[in-house]
């Protein structure tokens, strides 16, 4: 697989994409999921989240549509989903992180760290 030129990603972008990889979500659900996925390390504010979502939409990494859930529809909510391009970038980033981890584990196993 060719490595996309967009990686490495910032931590916030990585966790947002990871959050959307399982299923489409609305804004507040993404905020909560990012917090859980990062073990409370990354707590996004509404402004920061929507700034990131806007950039990801412009780059075509995610898509935006109306919420089909009745509660969401009543609140005029939108849901965000990972696009094919976005998924490819997330996969490439995961491979990169795995390689980093493998290298580190190898050195730890050799007792050099």
């Amino acid at each position, binding site marked *: 697989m060719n490595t996309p030129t967009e990686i490495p990603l910032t931590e916030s972008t990585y966790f947002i994409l990871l959050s959307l990889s399982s299923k489409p979500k609305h804004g507040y659900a993404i905020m909560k999921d990012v917090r859980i996925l990062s073990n409370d390390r990354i707590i996004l504010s*509404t402004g920061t989240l929507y700034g990131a979502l806007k950039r990801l939409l412009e780059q075509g990494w995610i898509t935006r549509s109306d919420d089909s859930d009745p509660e969401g529809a009543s609140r005029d909510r939108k849901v965000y989903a990972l696009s094919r391009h976005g998924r490819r970038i997330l996969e490439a980033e995961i491979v990169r992180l795995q390689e980093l981890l493998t290298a580190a584990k190898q050195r730890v196993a050799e007792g050099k760290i």
Partner: protein
Amino acid sequence: MSNVPRFTARVYHLFLRAYPPDYIETFGNEMYGTFIEGAEETQSQNALTSYLIREFREMPKALLKAYWHGCKNKILNGIQLLSEATLSSDLPPAPPDGRESWLQAVLELSPFLISGLLLILISYLPFEGMRAGWQRDLGFLGKVIIPLTLPIFLIGLMRGLPRWAYPFGGLLLSYQALVAYQSGLWLFLIVMLLASVILAVAAIFTSPQPFLLPVLLRRIGQSLSLDWTRLSFGFYGAMPLLIIMAFDDSHLNNRTPYLALSVLMMVGSALIYCRSRDVTMQITTLLGGLTLSICGAWLDQVSFAGGLMNWDTSPSLRSGETAWMLLLWIQWVFLILSPVLLITVGRVLNLKRPV
């Protein structure tokens, strides 16, 4: 909702208005809804205060980012539009230049050849009635330069600014700059030129429509997109005028051979530029031609002033002349290299930033 979230929701709604209009239109309602959802949930978990602190603390940063991102998008759109306006040429096909055709090379060299020939004739075979100090007479210079350069430059402009048109434009512009300098209006001229370019580019950035770019700038952009060294060649077109200025005492001296040597360097360098296919070679040649011509003028001053005016007894005159020539050289080196600097700045601005 209790009173606290209702009040803060109002404040948050007020703050949301500070976002750019297109941002509010797309995300305003959604952000407000998300904020309320968060406030409701954190209130039920008794964590409302920390939630509100975080939201309002992060808001200025998010606002700045939204504006910066909007500006960056406008700039990128403007750059794209500018490059489209300059690359999608509505001009006739570019004629071959001096690299492919000797005829074109002669045409490109003509301002240097004609002015060089005139300079040598006037300096070494003085005509009857040619008064001394004509080099400092801007009115006289204008009567020669403007009729010889303006019509040819305009023809070049109509034909899509081929390479041969640039030295004519450079000579004309440098004469106008000299007139402005002598009359104390050079700063005004520079400001007017810069302001017109900046306003034209700003018009594109604020309202992305290619037709807003003036025809002259489009023509220059389209022509330079084929070969950016043309701009350097255009500035080099001022060389005949620089030589006239640098040898302005030649009517008094013993007619040293340095003027002829400087003219020869100017024409020779222009010829190598016209025939060369390598950009580095082309720019180096132009710089070399400029440097050697100015060196010739300095040697002329040394041999003339050292003999007649005795620089040794008036060191201020010596250093003044040398500093003036050095300044002239630095200014034109900067102008000839300016396209290289512009390209470098463009590359730095295009550096990839993390998402």
